[in-house]
């Protein structure tokens, strides 16, 4: 079992911005992402506006990426969304099976 040390980037935020962040993550070099509906409560969550559609108000997004791409994604999120949108983002360590696949194209 060869495991590869990578980073897991997690972003939770209002639905309206999440697709954009996912696409940007791919541009930064992530090979994929995983997204899911959640219910959230935070300091700014009343900013959340997808009130009356079929979509969840809040979504959670995860990238498995090498450290440099992880930092690039977090910097992008912090600079572009933290001021005006409800969101939170964090990093953790993971050991990934066949992790060399997820090193990314690093064009970010």
């Amino acid at each position, binding site marked *: 079992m060869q495991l590869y040390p990578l980073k897991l980037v997690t972003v939770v935020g209002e639905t*309206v911005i999440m697709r954009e962040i996912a696409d940007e993550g791919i541009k930064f070099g992530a090979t994929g992402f995983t997204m899911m509906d959640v219910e959230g409560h935070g300091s700014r969550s009343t900013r959340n506006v997808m009130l009356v559609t079929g979509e969840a108000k809040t979504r959670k997004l995860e990238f498995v990426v090498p450290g440099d791409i992880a930092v690039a994604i977090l910097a992008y999120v912090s600079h572009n969304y933290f001021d005006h949108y409800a969101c939170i983002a964090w990093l953790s360590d993971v050991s990934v099976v066949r992790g060399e696949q997820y090193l990314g194209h690093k064009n970010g």
Partner: protein
Amino acid sequence: MTPLLPVAVGLLGVFSADQIGRIVESLERNLLTPIPLCFLLGIICTRIHGGIKIPKELYYSIAIFLLMSIGFIGGHELAHEYQEHGVSTIWKPALATLFLGCLTPITAYTVLRYVGGMSIADSAGIAAHYGSTSAVTYAVANSFVEQTQHPANSFLPTLVTLLECPGIAIALVLGAALSAKERAARAAAGGVGRPGPQARQSKLVEALYEVMTGQSIMLMAGLLVIGFVSTMFMDETGFQPFYDFFQSKGMLFRGLLCIFLLEMGLVAGERLGDLVKVGPFLIAFGILMPLVHGFLGAWLGHLAGLNLGGCTVLAAIVSSASYIAAPPAVRLTLPEANPTYSITAALAITFPFNIAFGIPIYFEMAKFVGAE
């Protein structure tokens, strides 16, 4: 409280005691029916922390049905109208509607910015909501005029579709243009990765495209065409089950509207707590602005040749505020705007006001300007 007040009071003031009496009567007739009562039940339930929970998929599915139904029946009636009169009866109301779609975001912006003293972003954001329209308000208004035996002209759904976009577009462009400088300054200070003016602009274009090809327009306009085409080419027996399914006087439409309004009540009830946050100006705005816009709608509608029901419904949709298409578009393009303001105004003030009081008032307004 605001300059709007005298204008609006003036509008109501021109009614005679007799007319006021009729307004009260039709208020009663309107209020004590299942649709507004379900809305009320939703509000009560939220306020007492009751347990009604409509799954969002049900709510969303009903929305899809209502939009399809409005479009399909609209297309069907339009085909009859077209077969009888060509486009002669339609082009004037269409122009009037487009004009109102361009006018209302501007009036709303002006009042919000210069009377209410709100920020550019907030004013533009709220104006985008009031420039667009609420399909449910259309559905309720349509039910109302049908119940009063004054059905609206057949092509009203076309007008709803026409009204959806321009208002949002104008308000967003206005907001983007006016706050460009402020943003440029902040962006300069902001550092790495911050979207420059170009990113902003491309986002605006994207948001506008999304509104124009959004769920509401696609379903209403799409089914309008389908209803039109099938009416032209199908025989009646084949067409009947589709008609029965979608028809707006039918049990499905009316019954599902009850469930929809119940959920709207649940959501609006949650927002009632925010009324304190938004303050008296916005509360007044949420009631008086629709009265002004509604009067314009009834009046121009009459000038354009709409019947009594048509004027009432046009007034209702012009006065109504969008809470489906507008919020995400505004959120994306004017992130500084506080969504609490716009959603509370649209959903917790204007929508209930229109459902309960506005529609009967527009009916009397339409009579007053001479529609029949």
